[in-house]
C-alpha cells in the first residue's frame, strides 16, 4: 500500500446550514486523509454528516448549507477555492462518485452505451466513434458486465439493479479518476449482488490505485472494504482507526455500542417459541405479473406466536407473496386461508374480506418515511384503524391510541406531530402501532429494518420480539439480511425464483446441510469482522431435480428441495 502524500486531505472542516435564524452545524471540525490505494470508510448513523463530507470532496454542498471553517484538498487542490471551471475539471477527471441508487441516476431513455460515452467524451477527444465504442465495451467489460457488446444497446430498465450499479461504476471510472467517492454503493441491493459489487470495487481500487472514500451505515460492508474507519456522530469525529483494530478493539464507548447492536451470523438464535396451532396456511400458491410466475407453487404454514422468515434475493417473490396475504394482489392459484376465529379465505382482495377478517392481518412497511401520510398526524394514523374496524367504544379511542403508542415505546406527547417531525425509528414505531391497532393475529413485516440505522434496528427488532411474545402474534418476517433473520426468526423459508428451495428451523438451516442457493446466501452475508471477508465459497451451479420426491428431509421439519449439479 502506498503511504505517500495523501490524495485527499480534509482539515478541520465545518459545515452548517441555516434553519430559521440560527445556524445548525452538520459537520464540526472533521479532519481526515486518504492516500492512493487506500480505502477510508465514513460510518455513522443518519444525520452524522458522513454524506456531507463525502460530497464536499467534490466541492458540493447541499442547497442552503455552507462551509464555515476548514479546507478540503484533493490531489493538491483546494476544492472550495477553485474557480467554477477548474472545479468542473476536478469533478470530470480527478474525483468520481458512485451514488446510492444508480437506477435513478441513469437516464431512462438513453442507451447504456451513450450514457457511458457521455462520461468518456469529457476526457477523450477522439471523434472516431469506433475507437470510443471499443473503449466503452472495454469499460463495461472492466466492471464485469456480461456480454458488454450487446449491453451498449440496452436501456437502463432492461438491466437488474446490480447491473445498473455496475454501469454507474463504469461511468465513474471512465475518466480514470484518482479519487473514488462511494455513497452507500450497495444499499438497496440484495446480499449476493452486494457481494459482487463490493468485490468489483475492491478490485478496481487496487488495479487503478484509487483513493477511495466509502460512506456506509452497514458495518458488514465497511469490514469487507475499508483499510481505515472514521466513525462520526452528529458531525463530530468519534474515532478513526485501522479497520482491523476498530472492529477488534474499539476505543470509544459509542463505537462499542454501535458494534454491539450489529446483528451477526454467529449470534445465538433467540429461544424459540414452542410450536402452536397454525393461523395461516398457504397451499400451492401462485401469483405473477402477466404470464410470468413470481410466486410458483409455494406452501407454508404460519403458527401462532412464531416468526417465520421469508428469505431470498430481490425478485424471489417474497414481497409478492406478502402482498397476496395482505389482500393487495389476488393470487392466480392455490389456497390461502386464515384459520383463527372466525376463519376465512385470504385469496380475495382486502376490500372484499369481511371486516372481522381484515383486521386480523396487518402489514408493516419497509420504508416508514413513505408508509405514513405526510399530511396526517401520528394520532390520525393510529386512530384510523380503530375507527374503521370499530374497535372499542368511541369514547375510549383516544385512550386506546395513547396506549398503543406506549406499547411501541413512543411518548404519547408525540401524537400531534406530523411524520416529517419524527425520526426514522419513531416513524417505524408509529407504523407498528398502526398495524397493532386492529388487534391482529398476523403481522407481515416487509423488510421493516432495512431503512434504519443499526442501533434503531436493534430496538425495533426487540420491540417486535416482545410484542409477538406478549400478544402471541404470528409474524411473517421478510428480509434479505440473514444476520437479522437469525436473531429473530423461529423458522426460515428460502425462496428462489418463486419456489421454496429450503425450509426449517433457524437453528437447522444455519447448521446445514443446505441447498446450494441457501449456501450462497449465507456465504454472501457480510460479517462486521474484517477477517471474515474472503470466506465466500463458490456454490456449485445447480438446477432443480424433479425426479420422484421433491424434498430431502433431514429431520425435524428441515426440508431441502432436491437439486443436482447443472449439466452443460
Amino acid at each position, binding site marked *: 500500500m502506498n503511504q505517500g502524500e495523501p490524495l485527499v486531505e480534509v482539515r478541520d472542516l465545518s459545515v452548517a446550514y441555516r434553519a430559521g435564524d440560527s445556524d445548525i452545524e452538520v459537520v464540526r471540525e472533521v479532519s481526515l486523509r486518504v492516500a492512493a490505494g487506500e480505502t477510508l470508510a465514513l460510518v455513522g448513523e443518519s444525520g452524522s454528516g458522513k454524506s456531507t463530507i463525502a460530497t464536499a470532496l467534490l466541492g458540493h454542498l447541499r442547497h442552503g448549507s455552507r462551509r464555515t471553517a476548514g479546507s478540503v484538498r484533493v490531489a493538491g487542490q483546494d476544492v472550495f477555492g477553485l474557480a467554477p471551471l477548474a472545479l468542473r475539471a476536478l469533478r470530470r477527471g480527478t474525483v468520481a462518485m458512485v451514488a446510492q441508487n444508480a437506477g435513478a441516476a441513469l437516464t431512462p431513455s438513453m442507451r447504456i452505451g451513450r450514457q457511458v460515452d457521455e462520461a468518456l467524451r469529457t476526457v477523450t477527444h477522439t471523434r472516431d466513434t469506433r475507437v470510443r465504442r471499443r473503449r466503452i465495451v472495454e469499460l463495461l467489460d472492466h466492471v464485469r458486465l456480461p456480454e458488454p457488446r450487446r449491453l451498449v444497446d440496452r436501456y437502463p430498465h432492461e438491466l437488474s439493479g446490480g447491473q445498473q450499479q455496475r454501469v454507474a461504476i463504469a461511468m465513474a471510472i471512465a475518466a480514470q479518476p484518482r479519487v473514488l467517492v462511494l455513497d452507500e454503493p450497495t444499499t438497496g441491493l440484495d446480499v449476493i449482488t452486494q457481494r459482487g459489487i463490493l468485490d468489483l470495487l475492491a478490485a478496481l481500487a487496487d488495479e487503478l490505485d484509487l483513493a477511495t472514500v466509502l460512506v456506509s451505515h452497514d458495518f458488514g460492508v465497511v469490514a469487507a472494504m475499508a483499510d481505515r474507519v472514521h466513525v462520526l456522530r452528529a458531525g463530530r469525529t468519534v474515532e478513526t482507526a485501522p479497520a482491523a483494530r476498530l472492529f477488534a478493539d474499539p476505543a470509544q464507548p459509542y463505537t462499542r455500542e454501535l458494534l454491539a447492536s450489529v446483528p451477526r451470523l454467529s449470534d445465538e438464535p433467540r429461544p424459540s417459541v414452542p410450536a402452536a396451532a397454525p393461523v395461516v396456511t398457504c397451499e400451492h400458491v401462485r401469483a405473477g405479473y402477466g404470464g410470468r410466475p413470481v410466486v410458483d407453487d409455494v406452501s407454508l404454514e404460519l403458527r401462532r406466536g412464531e416468526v417465520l422468515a421469508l428469505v431470498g434475493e430481490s425478485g424471489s417473490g417474497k414481497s409478492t407473496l406478502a402482498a397476496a396475504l*395482505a*389482500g*393487495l394482489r389476488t393470487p392466480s392459484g392455490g389456497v390461502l386461508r386464515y384459520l383463527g376465529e372466525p376463519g376465512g379465505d385470504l385469496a380475495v382482495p*382486502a*376490500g*372484499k*374480506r369481511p*371486516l372481522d377478517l*381484515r*383486521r386480523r392481518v*396487518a*402489514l408493516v*412497511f*419497509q*420504508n416508514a418515511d*413513505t*408508509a*405514513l*401520510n*405526510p*399530511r*396526517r398526524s401520528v394520532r390520525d394514523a393510529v386512530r*384510523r*384503524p380503530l375507527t*374503521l374496524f370499530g374497535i372499542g367504544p368511541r369514547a375510549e379511542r383516544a385512550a386506546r391510541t395513547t396506549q398503543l403508542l406506549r406499547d411501541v415505546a413512543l411518548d404519547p406527547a408525540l401524537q400531534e406531530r406530523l411524520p*416529517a417531525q419524527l425520526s426514522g425509528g419513531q416513524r417505524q414505531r408509529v407504523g407498528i402501532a*398502526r398495524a397493532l391497532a*386492529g388487534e391482529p393475529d398476523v403481522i407481515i413485516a416487509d423488510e421493516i429494518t432495512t431503512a434504519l440505522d443499526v442501533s434503531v434496528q436493534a430496538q425495533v427488532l426487540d420491540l417486535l420480539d416482545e410484542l409477538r411474545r406478549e400478544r402471541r402474534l404470528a409474524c411473517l418476517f421478510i428480509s434479505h439480511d440473514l444476520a437479522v433473520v437469525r436473531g429473530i426468526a423461529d423458522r426460515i423459508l428460502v425462496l428462489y425464483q418463486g419456489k421454496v428451495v429450503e425450509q426449517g428451523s433457524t437453528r437447522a438451516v444455519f447448521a446445514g446441510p443446505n441447498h446450494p442457493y441457501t449456501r450462497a446466501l449465507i456465504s454472501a452475508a457480510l460479517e462486521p469482522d474484517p477477517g471474515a471477508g474472503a470466506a465466500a465459497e463458490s456454490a456449485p451451479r445447480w438446477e432443480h431435480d424433479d425426479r420422484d420426491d421433491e424434498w430431502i428431509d433431514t429431520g425435524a421439519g428441515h426440508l431441502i428441495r432436491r437439486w443436482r449439479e447443472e449439466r452443460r
Partner: protein
Amino acid sequence: MIRWLPRSIAARLGLAIVVLHIGLALAAPLLAPYSPVRNDAGHALLGPSWSYWAGTDQYGRDVLSRVLYGGRYALAVSFAATFCTVVIGTVIGALAAFRGGWPDNVAMRVLDAVLSVPPILALLVIVTVFGTGAGVIVLAVTVVYAPAVVRVVRAAAQGVVTADYVTAARARGERTCPILAREVLPNILDVVFVEFAMRASWVVLLISSLSFLGFGVNPPAPDWGLMVAENRTAITVVPWGSLAPILALATLVVGLNVAADGLSKAWGVDRIRTGAP
C-alpha cells in the same frame, strides 16, 4: 397542511390584487358615486372630470360606477364556474389515477376528444342551445375546462397513489372514497389550489369574451365584457369607456396569474425543502 400566505412576494401581490377586486365588487353600492344604470342624456360622452372620474358613456352613465358594479357578474360567475370545474376535475382526476387500468384509459381518451374542441366554440354552441342563464354558463365552462384540470390532478395524484400509505389504506380494506379524501387529496391540495387560481384567470377571460359577444348579462346591466362591446364604437371620443373595463379585467387576470405562479413556486420549493413526496 398549507402554510397560508407563502413568503413569495409574487404570490402575495397576486392575491392582494384579487382580494382588492373582490372587495371593490362587494362594496360597489357604497363606493359608486352614481347609479350604474341610470341614463342621463345631458351628460353623455363626457371625458374624465372631477365629477365623473372616468367619464360617461353614450347614455350618460358613469363609467366608474359601471366598472365597479361590472366586476360582480364576472367575478361571481367565474368563481362559481371555476369552483365547479376544479371540484369535478379533481374528483375525476384523482379517481382515474387511483383506479388506473381501462377506466383510466377510457376516461383519458374521452377527455382528449373534449380537449380538442376550441373552448369558445363549444361554449357558443351550448349557450345557443340552452340559453344564456348564469347556470348554463357555469355548466358550459365546467364541461369545457374540467378535462384540463383532470389531466393536471391525475398527474399529481399518480405520484401519490403508489405511496405506501395509500397501499396501507388499501390493505386495511378502505373504500375508494375515504382513501381519496383522507390519503390522496391532502397531498395534492397545493396542486389543486394552484390549478384553481390558474384556471380562474382563463375562466374570467372566457366569460368576459362571452359577454362581449352578447351571451351573458343583458343590457343595461353593467358588465366589463359588455361595456367594452357597447363603448368600442365611441372609443375615439371617450376612450375611457372601453379602457376602464379593459384595465379592470386585465389587472384581475394578471393578479390571478401572478398568484398562481407565485403559489406554485412557493409550494413547489416548500415541498423540496421539507422533503415531502
